[in-house]
């Protein structure tokens, strides 16, 4: 069972596992030895509590590593939150979608006005033109692009945080001679 617990520790981010993995395994071993000799129900309750707690905490740590705050379980850290120097705006993809939807609607409107005046503007449209797209397929494309951009942005931030570059600002300045 201890081996299984050690395997489950790999659900945590590597820095966390390196720093606390041995301690956590040691505490688990101590509590596990205490449950020996107890009935089936107490042991089952112990395993359920430990493994669900571990899964929950691992998800929290990954969420905190990526976004600097507990996005998955905000209520669990609501009253004890750490100050984060940077948070990726969760509303960014939604706002981007709304702005781009407005742009698309404007293009649609401009196209409709132009088509109502065929003699004033010559028909020189390229084969693929945003104004030719219908609204809903265009919205779907824009939505996909917006979320792809958000995923790429999150991945970049994740890589940066793992590199520890955000801790450069916390390093003390070199003493003056």
């Amino acid at each position, binding site marked *: 069972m201890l081996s299984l617990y050690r395997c489950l520790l790999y659900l945590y981010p590597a820095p966390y596992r390196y720093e606390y993995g041995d301690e956590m395994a*040691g505490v688990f071993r101590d509590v596990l030895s205490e449950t020996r000799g107890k009935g089936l129900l107490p042991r089952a309750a112990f395993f359920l509590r*430990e493994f669900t*707690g571990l899964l*929950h905490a691992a998800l929290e740590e990954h969420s905190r590593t990526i976004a600097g705050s507990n996005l998955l379980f905000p209520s*669990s850290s609501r009253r*004890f939150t*750490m100050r984060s120097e940077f948070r990726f705006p969760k509303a960014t993809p939604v706002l981007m979608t709304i702005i781009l939807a407005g742009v698309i609607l404007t293009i649609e409107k401009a196209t409709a006005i132009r088509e109502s005046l065929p003699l004033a503007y010559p028909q020189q449209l390229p084969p693929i033109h945003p104004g030719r797209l219908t609204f809903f397929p265009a919205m779907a494309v824009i939505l996909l692009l917006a979320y792809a951009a958000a995923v790429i942005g999150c991945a970049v931030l994740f890589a940066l945080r793992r590199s520890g570059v955000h801790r450069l600002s916390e390093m003390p300045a070199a003493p003056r001679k």
Partner: protein
Amino acid sequence: MDVLPLTEPVLLILLSLAEQPRHGYSILKDVEEMSDGRVTLSTGTLYGALRRLLEDGWIERYEEEDSSRGRQAYRLTPAGRRNLQLEASRLKHLARVANLRVARKGL
């Protein structure tokens, strides 16, 4: 103070460390004893809270004389003790208000 009120697991962990420096297993048992068996922390919950408390400077690592690999002890810092006192004052005030209102209504 924007870090108050504290969650119950954090409060119990701080109370446990307020008495003396402890390692993880000792904190688990002390929390269970303080809560009369009502609160049983998992190792994941415990070390998640310890990590946040360490990063916020409320607790620090403590080297025991008989420390071995895997049994790291922790203790409160002055900042942690101060925040714990603030929380205790808040709870004391709340309890006083609750007792007064309950007594007033004759419940």
